[in-house]
Protein backbone atom coordinates (compact mmCIF):
# COMPACT_ATOMS: atom_id res chain seq x y z
CA UNK A 1 0.00 0.00 0.00
CA UNK A 2 1.59 3.27 -1.12
CA UNK A 3 0.31 5.13 1.92
CA UNK A 4 1.95 2.62 4.27
CA UNK A 5 5.23 2.89 2.42
CA UNK A 6 5.07 6.69 2.51
CA UNK A 7 4.48 6.66 6.26
CA UNK A 8 7.32 4.23 6.78
CA UNK A 9 9.67 6.52 4.83
CA UNK A 10 8.56 9.62 6.68
CA UNK A 11 8.60 7.99 10.11
CA UNK A 12 11.22 5.23 10.20
CA UNK A 13 11.68 3.35 13.49
CA UNK A 14 13.96 5.14 15.92
CA UNK A 15 17.47 3.57 15.74
CA UNK A 16 18.37 4.29 19.40
CA UNK A 17 16.51 5.12 22.63
CA UNK A 18 17.95 8.63 22.48
CA UNK A 19 16.52 9.08 18.99
CA UNK A 20 13.14 7.81 20.22
CA UNK A 21 13.06 10.38 23.04
CA UNK A 22 14.05 13.07 20.56
CA UNK A 23 11.18 12.05 18.25
CA UNK A 24 8.76 12.11 21.20
CA UNK A 25 9.94 15.55 22.29
CA UNK A 26 9.64 16.86 18.72
CA UNK A 27 6.14 15.38 18.47
CA UNK A 28 5.05 17.07 21.71
CA UNK A 29 6.54 20.43 20.74
CA UNK A 30 5.16 20.14 17.22
CA UNK A 31 1.69 19.30 18.52
CA UNK A 32 1.68 22.30 20.86
CA UNK A 33 2.82 24.60 18.02
CA UNK A 34 0.14 23.28 15.68
CA UNK A 35 -2.64 23.56 18.28
CA UNK A 36 -1.65 27.10 19.28
CA UNK A 37 -1.39 28.12 15.63
CA UNK A 38 -4.81 26.65 14.83
CA UNK A 39 -6.31 28.35 17.88
CA UNK A 40 -5.00 31.74 16.78
CA UNK A 41 -5.59 31.45 13.06
CA UNK A 42 -9.09 29.99 13.19
CA UNK A 43 -12.01 31.96 14.50
CA UNK A 44 -14.97 30.33 16.29
CA UNK A 45 -16.52 29.25 12.98
CA UNK A 46 -13.21 27.84 11.80
CA UNK A 47 -12.78 25.88 15.02
CA UNK A 48 -16.31 24.47 14.72
CA UNK A 49 -15.57 23.45 11.15
CA UNK A 50 -12.33 21.76 12.22
CA UNK A 51 -14.08 19.89 15.04
CA UNK A 52 -16.82 18.77 12.67
CA UNK A 53 -14.22 17.62 10.14
CA UNK A 54 -12.16 15.64 12.65
CA UNK A 55 -15.33 14.10 14.13
CA UNK A 56 -16.48 13.06 10.69
CA UNK A 57 -13.14 11.54 9.67
CA UNK A 58 -12.82 9.63 12.97
CA UNK A 59 -16.32 8.16 12.65
CA UNK A 60 -15.81 7.48 8.96
CA UNK A 61 -12.68 5.43 9.62
CA UNK A 62 -14.36 2.90 11.89
CA UNK A 63 -17.62 2.89 9.96
CA UNK A 64 -15.89 2.38 6.64
CA UNK A 65 -13.72 -0.42 8.01
CA UNK A 66 -16.85 -2.22 9.18
CA UNK A 67 -18.91 -1.73 6.03
CA UNK A 68 -16.29 -1.99 3.26
CA UNK A 69 -16.28 -5.40 1.55
CA UNK A 70 -13.61 -7.81 2.74
CA UNK A 71 -11.51 -10.35 0.86
CA UNK A 72 -9.05 -13.11 1.57
CA UNK A 73 -8.32 -15.18 4.63
CA UNK A 74 -8.38 -13.71 7.19
CA UNK A 75 -11.09 -11.49 5.72
CA UNK A 76 -10.00 -7.89 5.62
CA UNK A 77 -10.14 -4.71 3.60
CA UNK A 78 -7.66 -1.89 3.07
CA UNK A 79 -8.43 -0.39 6.49
CA UNK A 80 -8.40 -3.53 8.63
CA UNK A 81 -4.65 -3.52 9.28
CA UNK A 82 -4.95 0.04 10.56
CA UNK A 83 -7.47 -0.85 13.27
CA UNK A 84 -4.87 -2.02 15.73
CA UNK A 85 -2.45 0.95 15.44
CA UNK A 86 -5.35 3.44 15.46
CA UNK A 87 -6.82 1.70 18.51
CA UNK A 88 -3.45 1.85 20.25
CA UNK A 89 -3.15 5.53 19.29
CA UNK A 90 -6.61 6.24 20.73
CA UNK A 91 -5.62 4.43 23.91
CA UNK A 92 -2.54 6.66 24.21
CA UNK A 93 -4.62 9.79 23.57
CA UNK A 94 -7.16 8.60 26.11
CA UNK A 95 -4.38 8.17 28.66
CA UNK A 96 -3.68 11.91 28.35
CA UNK A 97 -7.09 12.59 29.82
CA UNK A 98 -5.94 10.97 33.04
CA UNK A 99 -3.36 13.74 33.26
CA UNK A 100 -6.04 16.30 32.46
CA UNK A 101 -8.16 14.93 35.26
CA UNK A 102 -5.31 15.12 37.75
CA UNK A 103 -4.53 18.68 36.65
CA UNK A 104 -8.17 19.67 37.08
CA UNK A 105 -8.31 18.17 40.58
CA UNK A 106 -5.09 19.90 41.62
CA UNK A 107 -6.33 23.19 40.23
CA UNK A 108 -9.72 23.07 41.95
CA UNK A 109 -8.48 21.92 45.33
CA UNK A 110 -5.36 24.04 45.16
CA UNK A 111 -7.53 27.11 44.64
CA UNK A 112 -9.71 26.13 47.61
CA UNK A 113 -6.64 25.83 49.82
CA UNK A 114 -4.88 28.97 48.59
CA UNK A 115 -7.97 31.13 49.01
CA UNK A 116 -9.12 29.42 52.26
CA UNK A 117 -12.60 28.91 50.86
CA UNK A 118 -15.27 27.26 53.04
CA UNK A 119 -14.47 23.55 53.24
CA UNK A 120 -10.73 24.11 52.56
CA UNK A 121 -9.91 21.41 55.10
CA UNK A 122 -11.53 18.87 52.74
CA UNK A 123 -9.13 19.99 50.01
CA UNK A 124 -6.23 19.56 52.44
CA UNK A 125 -7.44 16.04 53.19
CA UNK A 126 -7.61 15.44 49.45
CA UNK A 127 -3.96 16.43 48.95
CA UNK A 128 -2.76 14.38 51.92
CA UNK A 129 -4.68 11.30 50.78
CA UNK A 130 -3.64 11.67 47.13
CA UNK A 131 0.05 12.06 47.81
CA UNK A 132 0.12 9.36 50.47
CA UNK A 133 -1.51 6.87 48.11
CA UNK A 134 0.69 7.97 45.20
CA UNK A 135 3.95 7.78 47.11
CA UNK A 136 3.33 4.48 48.86
CA UNK A 137 1.57 2.92 45.88
CA UNK A 138 4.50 3.58 43.59
CA UNK A 139 7.01 2.65 46.28
CA UNK A 140 5.23 -0.67 46.81
CA UNK A 141 5.16 -1.31 43.07
CA UNK A 142 8.88 -0.67 42.60
CA UNK A 143 9.84 -2.88 45.52
CA UNK A 144 9.32 -5.77 43.05
CA UNK A 145 8.50 -8.15 45.85
CA UNK A 146 8.88 -11.85 45.00
CA UNK A 147 5.81 -14.01 44.43
CA UNK A 148 4.38 -15.13 46.76
CA UNK A 149 5.20 -12.14 48.99
CA UNK A 150 7.32 -12.88 52.11
CA UNK A 151 5.77 -13.20 55.57
CA UNK A 152 7.41 -9.98 56.77
CA UNK A 153 7.05 -7.22 54.22
CA UNK A 154 8.97 -3.94 53.98
CA UNK A 155 7.31 -1.04 55.82
CA UNK A 156 6.30 0.89 52.64
CA UNK A 157 4.22 -2.12 51.60
CA UNK A 158 2.75 -2.26 55.09
CA UNK A 159 1.65 1.38 54.89
CA UNK A 160 0.29 0.82 51.40
CA UNK A 161 -1.75 -2.13 52.66
CA UNK A 162 -3.11 0.00 55.52
CA UNK A 163 -4.09 2.77 53.13
CA UNK A 164 -5.61 0.46 50.54
CA UNK A 165 -7.06 -2.51 52.41
CA UNK A 166 -7.48 -0.71 55.71
CA UNK A 167 -8.99 2.59 54.59
CA UNK A 168 -9.91 2.92 50.94
CA UNK A 169 -11.62 -0.42 50.35
CA UNK A 170 -13.67 -0.45 53.58
CA UNK A 171 -14.78 3.17 53.03
CA UNK A 172 -16.05 2.30 49.57
CA UNK A 173 -17.78 -0.81 50.82
CA UNK A 174 -19.37 1.09 53.73
CA UNK A 175 -20.76 3.79 51.45
CA UNK A 176 -22.20 1.19 49.11
CA UNK A 177 -23.77 -0.52 52.10
CA UNK A 178 -25.85 2.59 52.76
CA UNK A 179 -27.87 1.58 49.73
CA UNK A 180 -29.35 -1.38 51.56
CA UNK A 181 -30.92 0.94 54.13
CA UNK A 182 -32.03 3.42 51.50
CA UNK A 183 -33.66 0.66 49.46
CA UNK A 184 -35.55 -0.54 52.51
CA UNK A 185 -36.90 2.90 53.35
CA UNK A 186 -37.62 3.81 49.71
CA UNK A 187 -39.46 0.54 49.07
CA UNK A 188 -41.50 0.84 52.27
CA UNK A 189 -42.45 4.42 51.50
CA UNK A 190 -43.05 4.31 47.75
CA UNK A 191 -44.60 0.94 46.92
CA UNK A 192 -48.33 1.36 47.28
CA UNK A 193 -50.84 -0.79 45.44
CA UNK A 194 -53.02 1.91 43.94
CA UNK A 195 -53.96 0.17 40.70
CA UNK A 196 -54.30 -3.32 39.26
CA UNK A 197 -50.99 -2.95 37.41
CA UNK A 198 -49.28 -1.99 40.64
CA UNK A 199 -50.70 -5.12 42.28
CA UNK A 200 -49.29 -7.28 39.48
CA UNK A 201 -45.93 -5.58 39.78
CA UNK A 202 -45.95 -6.07 43.53
CA UNK A 203 -46.75 -9.79 43.19
CA UNK A 204 -43.93 -10.24 40.67
CA UNK A 205 -41.54 -8.31 42.92
CA UNK A 206 -42.39 -10.45 45.96
CA UNK A 207 -41.98 -13.68 44.00
CA UNK A 208 -38.58 -12.63 42.65
CA UNK A 209 -37.36 -11.24 45.99
CA UNK A 210 -38.27 -14.37 47.91
CA UNK A 211 -37.32 -16.73 45.09
CA UNK A 212 -33.81 -15.30 44.96
CA UNK A 213 -32.97 -16.21 48.56
CA UNK A 214 -32.79 -19.60 50.35
CA UNK A 215 -35.91 -18.71 52.40
CA UNK A 216 -37.98 -18.94 49.23
CA UNK A 217 -36.68 -22.38 48.36
CA UNK A 218 -37.30 -23.47 51.95
CA UNK A 219 -40.89 -22.17 52.00
CA UNK A 220 -41.87 -24.33 49.03
CA UNK A 221 -39.47 -27.19 49.66
CA UNK A 222 -42.47 -29.44 50.33
CA UNK A 223 -43.09 -29.49 46.54
CA UNK A 224 -40.94 -32.26 45.05
CA UNK A 225 -38.31 -30.92 42.66
CA UNK A 226 -39.07 -33.53 40.02
CA UNK A 227 -42.84 -33.30 40.11
CA UNK A 228 -45.02 -31.45 37.56
CA UNK A 229 -45.85 -28.96 40.30
CA UNK A 230 -42.15 -28.06 40.71
CA UNK A 231 -42.86 -24.95 38.62
CA UNK A 232 -44.64 -23.51 41.66
CA UNK A 233 -41.56 -23.69 43.84
CA UNK A 234 -40.70 -20.08 44.59
CA UNK A 235 -37.19 -20.27 43.16
CA UNK A 236 -38.57 -21.72 39.91
CA UNK A 237 -41.30 -19.10 39.74
CA UNK A 238 -38.77 -16.37 40.34
CA UNK A 239 -36.54 -17.75 37.62
CA UNK A 240 -39.53 -17.92 35.28
CA UNK A 241 -40.43 -14.28 35.95
CA UNK A 242 -36.86 -13.21 35.26
CA UNK A 243 -36.41 -15.27 32.11
CA UNK A 244 -39.83 -15.07 30.48
CA UNK A 245 -41.37 -11.79 31.65
CA UNK A 246 -38.32 -9.66 32.38
CA UNK A 247 -36.22 -10.73 29.39
CA UNK A 248 -38.59 -9.61 26.60
CA UNK A 249 -39.11 -6.29 28.38
CA UNK A 250 -35.36 -5.80 28.71
CA UNK A 251 -34.89 -6.69 25.05
CA UNK A 252 -37.44 -4.08 24.08
CA UNK A 253 -35.66 -1.47 26.17
CA UNK A 254 -32.26 -2.46 24.74
CA UNK A 255 -33.51 -2.17 21.15
CA UNK A 256 -35.18 1.15 21.81
CA UNK A 257 -32.08 2.58 23.46
CA UNK A 258 -29.86 1.21 20.70
CA UNK A 259 -31.91 2.91 17.98
CA UNK A 260 -31.94 6.12 20.01
CA UNK A 261 -28.19 5.90 20.47
CA UNK A 262 -27.76 5.24 16.72
CA UNK A 263 -29.74 8.36 15.89
CA UNK A 264 -27.83 10.50 18.37
CA UNK A 265 -24.48 9.11 17.22
CA UNK A 266 -25.44 9.84 13.62
CA UNK A 267 -26.38 13.39 14.53
CA UNK A 268 -23.07 13.95 16.32
CA UNK A 269 -21.04 12.26 13.55
CA UNK A 270 -22.62 14.42 10.87
CA UNK A 271 -22.57 17.48 13.20
CA UNK A 272 -26.33 17.73 12.88
CA UNK A 273 -26.91 17.98 16.63
CA UNK A 274 -28.57 21.25 17.43
CA UNK A 275 -29.67 23.04 20.48
CA UNK A 276 -28.35 25.22 23.21
CA UNK A 277 -25.20 23.21 23.77
CA UNK A 278 -24.08 22.25 20.31
CA UNK A 279 -24.80 25.15 17.99
CA UNK A 280 -27.68 27.35 17.08
CA UNK A 281 -29.71 26.66 14.00
CA UNK A 282 -29.05 29.56 11.67
Amino acid at each position, binding site marked *: MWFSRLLQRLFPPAPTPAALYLYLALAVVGSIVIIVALHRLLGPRGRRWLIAFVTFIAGLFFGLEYFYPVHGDPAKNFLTDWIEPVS*VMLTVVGAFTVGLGIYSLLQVHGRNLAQRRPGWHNSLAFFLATFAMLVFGMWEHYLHLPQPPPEVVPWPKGIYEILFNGLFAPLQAATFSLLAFYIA*SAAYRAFRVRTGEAALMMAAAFIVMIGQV*PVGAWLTSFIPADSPAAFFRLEMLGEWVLRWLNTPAQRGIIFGIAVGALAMSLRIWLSLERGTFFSEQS
Partner: protein
Amino acid sequence: MSAPQPTTLSDRIQQIPRHYVYLLLAGVVVWQLLFPIRLPITPSVPTRGVYDAVAAVPDDKLIIITTDWDASTQAETGPQTQAVIHACFQNHKKFVIMNLQPPMGVKLAQDLAQEAAAEYGAVYGVDYANWGYKYGYENVLMAMAKNIPNAIGDDFYGKPVGELPLMQGVEDIHAIGLVVIVTGLSAMTEMWVGLIQGPYNTPLAAAYTAVMAPIYYPYLDSDQLKGMLVGAKGAAELEAMVDRPGKAVAIMNVQSWAHVLIIALILLGNLGYLFARGRGGERQP
Protein backbone atom coordinates in the same frame (compact mmCIF):
# COMPACT_ATOMS: atom_id res chain seq x y z
CA MET B 1 -40.18 20.41 53.86
CA SER B 2 -41.52 17.67 56.17
CA ALA B 3 -44.74 15.70 55.95
CA PRO B 4 -47.56 16.50 58.40
CA GLN B 5 -47.46 14.49 61.66
CA PRO B 6 -49.42 11.21 61.52
CA THR B 7 -52.62 11.24 63.56
CA THR B 8 -54.41 7.95 62.96
CA LEU B 9 -53.18 4.37 63.22
CA SER B 10 -53.23 3.93 59.45
CA ASP B 11 -51.15 7.10 59.06
CA ARG B 12 -48.66 5.91 61.66
CA ILE B 13 -48.35 2.56 59.90
CA GLN B 14 -47.60 4.33 56.63
CA GLN B 15 -45.17 6.80 58.17
CA ILE B 16 -42.82 4.82 60.37
CA PRO B 17 -39.79 7.10 60.73
CA ARG B 18 -36.97 5.88 58.50
CA HIS B 19 -34.60 5.66 61.46
CA TYR B 20 -36.68 2.80 62.87
CA VAL B 21 -36.62 1.11 59.48
CA TYR B 22 -32.82 1.39 59.44
CA LEU B 23 -32.61 0.03 63.00
CA LEU B 24 -34.84 -2.92 62.17
CA LEU B 25 -32.73 -3.77 59.13
CA ALA B 26 -29.50 -3.41 61.08
CA GLY B 27 -30.97 -5.67 63.78
CA VAL B 28 -31.84 -8.38 61.26
CA VAL B 29 -28.33 -8.22 59.75
CA VAL B 30 -26.62 -8.48 63.13
CA TRP B 31 -28.99 -11.26 64.24
CA GLN B 32 -28.23 -13.39 61.20
CA LEU B 33 -24.50 -12.76 61.36
CA LEU B 34 -24.39 -13.85 64.98
CA PHE B 35 -27.06 -16.56 64.94
CA PRO B 36 -27.40 -17.70 61.31
CA ILE B 37 -30.30 -19.87 60.32
CA ARG B 38 -28.67 -22.04 57.68
CA LEU B 39 -30.91 -23.01 54.83
CA PRO B 40 -29.94 -25.32 51.93
CA ILE B 41 -28.67 -23.72 48.76
CA THR B 42 -29.54 -25.37 45.45
CA PRO B 43 -27.58 -24.30 42.37
CA SER B 44 -29.75 -22.75 39.68
CA VAL B 45 -29.48 -23.37 35.96
CA PRO B 46 -27.56 -20.14 35.19
CA THR B 47 -25.01 -20.96 37.91
CA ARG B 48 -24.61 -24.51 36.63
CA GLY B 49 -23.95 -22.96 33.23
CA VAL B 50 -20.93 -21.12 34.62
CA TYR B 51 -19.50 -24.22 36.23
CA ASP B 52 -20.08 -26.33 33.12
CA ALA B 53 -18.50 -23.66 30.93
CA VAL B 54 -15.35 -23.71 33.06
CA ALA B 55 -15.21 -27.51 33.04
CA ALA B 56 -15.67 -27.62 29.26
CA VAL B 57 -12.64 -25.46 28.45
CA PRO B 58 -10.00 -27.49 26.55
CA ASP B 59 -6.82 -28.07 28.55
CA ASP B 60 -4.68 -26.19 26.04
CA LYS B 61 -6.71 -22.99 26.32
CA LEU B 62 -6.77 -20.21 28.87
CA ILE B 63 -9.65 -18.77 30.84
CA ILE B 64 -9.77 -15.01 31.25
CA ILE B 65 -11.43 -13.80 34.44
CA THR B 66 -12.13 -10.10 34.10
CA THR B 67 -12.48 -8.47 37.48
CA ASP B 68 -14.15 -5.17 36.64
CA TRP B 69 -15.22 -4.40 40.18
CA ASP B 70 -13.97 -2.61 43.24
CA ALA B 71 -14.48 -2.55 46.99
CA SER B 72 -17.98 -1.11 46.70
CA THR B 73 -19.38 -4.30 45.15
CA GLN B 74 -16.89 -6.60 46.85
CA ALA B 75 -19.59 -8.22 48.97
CA GLU B 76 -21.03 -9.79 45.81
CA THR B 77 -18.26 -9.80 43.23
CA GLY B 78 -15.53 -10.86 45.66
CA PRO B 79 -17.14 -14.21 46.52
CA GLN B 80 -18.12 -14.64 42.86
CA THR B 81 -14.51 -14.21 41.76
CA GLN B 82 -13.31 -16.50 44.51
CA ALA B 83 -15.80 -19.22 43.57
CA VAL B 84 -14.83 -19.01 39.88
CA ILE B 85 -11.15 -19.25 40.81
CA HIS B 86 -11.86 -22.36 42.88
CA ALA B 87 -13.80 -23.84 39.96
CA CYS B 88 -10.79 -23.22 37.68
CA PHE B 89 -8.30 -24.76 40.08
CA GLN B 90 -10.50 -27.78 40.79
CA ASN B 91 -10.96 -28.45 37.08
CA HIS B 92 -7.22 -27.93 36.46
CA LYS B 93 -7.82 -25.03 34.09
CA LYS B 94 -5.27 -22.28 33.67
CA PHE B 95 -6.61 -18.78 34.03
CA VAL B 96 -5.55 -15.16 33.92
CA ILE B 97 -7.02 -12.18 35.72
CA MET B 98 -7.36 -8.83 34.06
CA ASN B 99 -9.55 -5.81 34.15
CA LEU B 100 -10.48 -2.80 32.11
CA GLN B 101 -12.00 -0.66 34.87
CA PRO B 102 -11.54 0.12 37.78
CA PRO B 103 -7.91 -0.58 38.60
CA MET B 104 -8.62 -1.81 42.13
CA GLY B 105 -10.23 -4.99 40.88
CA VAL B 106 -7.01 -6.72 39.84
CA LYS B 107 -5.40 -6.10 43.22
CA LEU B 108 -8.40 -7.46 45.12
CA ALA B 109 -8.68 -10.43 42.76
CA GLN B 110 -4.96 -11.13 43.03
CA ASP B 111 -5.33 -11.41 46.81
CA LEU B 112 -8.14 -13.94 46.30
CA ALA B 113 -6.16 -15.90 43.72
CA GLN B 114 -3.10 -16.09 45.97
CA GLU B 115 -5.20 -17.34 48.84
CA ALA B 116 -6.77 -20.05 46.67
CA ALA B 117 -3.47 -20.92 44.99
CA ALA B 118 -1.91 -21.70 48.37
CA GLU B 119 -4.68 -24.24 48.97
CA TYR B 120 -4.15 -26.04 45.64
CA GLY B 121 -0.38 -25.65 45.42
CA ALA B 122 -0.75 -23.56 42.27
CA VAL B 123 2.17 -21.48 41.05
CA TYR B 124 1.91 -17.96 39.70
CA GLY B 125 2.94 -17.78 36.07
CA VAL B 126 2.45 -21.50 35.58
CA ASP B 127 -1.11 -22.22 36.70
CA TYR B 128 -2.48 -18.69 36.82
CA ALA B 129 -1.40 -15.15 36.15
CA ASN B 130 -2.58 -11.59 36.46
CA TRP B 131 -2.41 -9.38 33.38
CA GLY B 132 -3.30 -6.38 35.46
CA TYR B 133 -5.34 -3.30 34.69
CA LYS B 134 -5.36 -2.31 31.02
CA TYR B 135 -6.56 1.10 29.98
CA GLY B 136 -8.44 1.52 26.72
CA TYR B 137 -11.71 -0.41 26.91
CA GLU B 138 -12.66 -1.45 23.35
CA ASN B 139 -9.21 -0.67 22.04
CA VAL B 140 -7.70 -3.23 24.38
CA LEU B 141 -10.14 -5.91 23.28
CA MET B 142 -9.65 -5.19 19.59
CA ALA B 143 -5.89 -5.33 20.03
CA MET B 144 -6.11 -8.50 22.13
CA ALA B 145 -8.12 -10.27 19.47
CA LYS B 146 -5.20 -9.97 17.08
CA ASN B 147 -2.16 -10.19 19.37
CA ILE B 148 -2.46 -10.81 23.09
CA PRO B 149 1.19 -10.38 24.20
CA ASN B 150 1.43 -7.04 22.36
CA ALA B 151 -1.91 -5.82 23.65
CA ILE B 152 -1.28 -6.83 27.26
CA GLY B 153 2.39 -6.00 27.55
CA ASP B 154 3.33 -6.45 31.21
CA ASP B 155 1.58 -8.38 33.91
CA PHE B 156 0.40 -7.08 37.29
CA TYR B 157 3.98 -7.24 38.61
CA GLY B 158 5.54 -5.48 35.61
CA LYS B 159 6.92 -8.60 33.97
CA PRO B 160 6.37 -9.08 30.21
CA VAL B 161 3.51 -11.57 29.87
CA GLY B 162 5.31 -13.35 27.07
CA GLU B 163 7.85 -14.57 29.63
CA LEU B 164 5.26 -16.36 31.74
CA PRO B 165 5.21 -20.13 31.20
CA LEU B 166 1.43 -20.31 30.88
CA MET B 167 1.55 -17.76 28.06
CA GLN B 168 3.63 -20.03 25.80
CA GLY B 169 1.71 -20.51 22.58
CA VAL B 170 -0.86 -17.86 23.47
CA GLU B 171 -0.95 -15.53 20.49
CA ASP B 172 -4.44 -14.29 19.87
CA ILE B 173 -8.02 -14.71 20.97
CA HIS B 174 -8.20 -18.25 19.62
CA ALA B 175 -6.03 -19.36 22.53
CA ILE B 176 -8.76 -18.32 24.94
CA GLY B 177 -11.31 -20.97 25.88
CA LEU B 178 -13.63 -18.89 28.04
CA VAL B 179 -14.01 -15.37 29.33
CA VAL B 180 -15.73 -14.97 32.70
CA ILE B 181 -16.82 -11.39 33.21
CA VAL B 182 -17.15 -10.57 36.89
CA THR B 183 -18.38 -7.04 37.12
CA GLY B 184 -20.49 -4.46 38.89
CA LEU B 185 -20.28 -2.11 35.94
CA SER B 186 -22.60 -1.78 32.96
CA ALA B 187 -21.30 -1.85 29.40
CA MET B 188 -18.52 -4.39 29.96
CA THR B 189 -20.58 -7.31 28.70
CA GLU B 190 -21.66 -5.44 25.58
CA MET B 191 -18.00 -4.82 24.73
CA TRP B 192 -16.99 -8.44 25.15
CA VAL B 193 -20.05 -9.71 23.25
CA GLY B 194 -19.60 -7.24 20.42
CA LEU B 195 -15.84 -7.51 19.98
CA ILE B 196 -14.92 -11.01 21.16
CA GLN B 197 -17.89 -13.37 21.50
CA GLY B 198 -19.65 -12.25 18.32
CA PRO B 199 -16.77 -12.17 15.85
CA TYR B 200 -14.68 -15.03 17.28
CA ASN B 201 -17.33 -17.18 19.06
CA THR B 202 -15.26 -17.17 22.24
CA PRO B 203 -17.49 -18.57 25.01
CA LEU B 204 -18.54 -16.03 27.62
CA ALA B 205 -19.91 -16.43 31.11
CA ALA B 206 -20.62 -13.70 33.58
CA ALA B 207 -21.13 -12.81 37.20
CA TYR B 208 -23.07 -9.68 38.05
CA THR B 209 -24.35 -7.81 41.04
CA ALA B 210 -27.97 -8.66 41.71
CA VAL B 211 -29.23 -5.23 40.67
CA MET B 212 -27.81 -5.43 37.15
CA ALA B 213 -28.33 -9.14 36.46
CA PRO B 214 -31.93 -8.79 35.14
CA ILE B 215 -30.81 -6.76 32.15
CA TYR B 216 -28.46 -9.51 31.03
CA TYR B 217 -30.96 -12.36 30.93
CA PRO B 218 -31.48 -11.71 27.18
CA TYR B 219 -27.83 -12.59 26.62
CA LEU B 220 -28.27 -15.79 28.62
CA ASP B 221 -31.39 -16.64 26.69
CA SER B 222 -29.71 -16.17 23.33
CA ASP B 223 -26.73 -18.28 24.41
CA GLN B 224 -24.30 -15.38 24.12
CA LEU B 225 -23.61 -16.08 27.78
CA LYS B 226 -23.13 -19.71 28.72
CA GLY B 227 -23.95 -19.07 32.35
CA MET B 228 -24.51 -16.31 34.84
CA LEU B 229 -23.95 -15.82 38.56
CA VAL B 230 -26.57 -13.50 40.00
CA GLY B 231 -25.26 -11.54 42.95
CA ALA B 232 -24.35 -13.17 46.22
CA LYS B 233 -26.89 -15.91 45.53
CA GLY B 234 -25.00 -17.03 42.44
CA ALA B 235 -21.73 -16.89 44.35
CA ALA B 236 -23.24 -19.00 47.16
CA GLU B 237 -24.54 -21.53 44.65
CA LEU B 238 -21.14 -21.83 42.98
CA GLU B 239 -19.48 -22.08 46.39
CA ALA B 240 -21.82 -24.99 47.10
CA MET B 241 -20.93 -26.62 43.76
CA VAL B 242 -17.17 -26.34 44.41
CA ASP B 243 -17.72 -27.37 48.02
CA ARG B 244 -16.10 -24.23 49.41
CA PRO B 245 -18.84 -22.48 51.44
CA GLY B 246 -17.58 -19.04 52.29
CA LYS B 247 -18.69 -15.43 52.57
CA ALA B 248 -21.47 -15.74 50.01
CA VAL B 249 -23.26 -18.40 52.03
CA ALA B 250 -23.06 -16.19 55.12
CA ILE B 251 -24.36 -13.25 53.08
CA MET B 252 -27.31 -15.31 51.84
CA ASN B 253 -28.34 -16.09 55.41
CA VAL B 254 -28.51 -12.37 56.08
CA GLN B 255 -30.08 -11.48 52.75
CA SER B 256 -32.87 -14.01 53.16
CA TRP B 257 -34.23 -12.39 56.29
CA ALA B 258 -33.54 -8.87 55.09
CA HIS B 259 -35.78 -9.58 52.10
CA VAL B 260 -38.44 -10.94 54.44
CA LEU B 261 -38.24 -7.73 56.49
CA ILE B 262 -38.53 -5.50 53.43
CA ILE B 263 -41.55 -7.46 52.18
CA ALA B 264 -43.12 -7.21 55.64
CA LEU B 265 -42.58 -3.44 55.69
CA ILE B 266 -44.09 -3.05 52.20
CA LEU B 267 -47.11 -5.10 53.25
CA LEU B 268 -47.43 -3.03 56.41
CA GLY B 269 -47.34 0.19 54.42
CA ASN B 270 -49.99 -1.11 52.05
CA LEU B 271 -52.12 -2.23 54.98
CA GLY B 272 -52.04 1.31 56.32
CA TYR B 273 -52.90 2.60 52.86
CA LEU B 274 -55.88 0.26 52.58
CA PHE B 275 -57.16 1.27 56.03
CA ALA B 276 -56.81 4.92 55.09
CA ARG B 277 -58.66 4.37 51.83
CA GLY B 278 -61.37 2.54 53.75
CA ARG B 279 -61.76 5.59 55.94
CA GLY B 280 -62.22 7.70 52.84
CA GLY B 281 -58.82 9.34 52.88
CA GLU B 282 -55.53 8.59 51.17
CA ARG B 283 -52.27 9.23 52.87
CA GLN B 284 -49.40 10.46 50.72
CA PRO B 285 -46.15 9.46 52.42
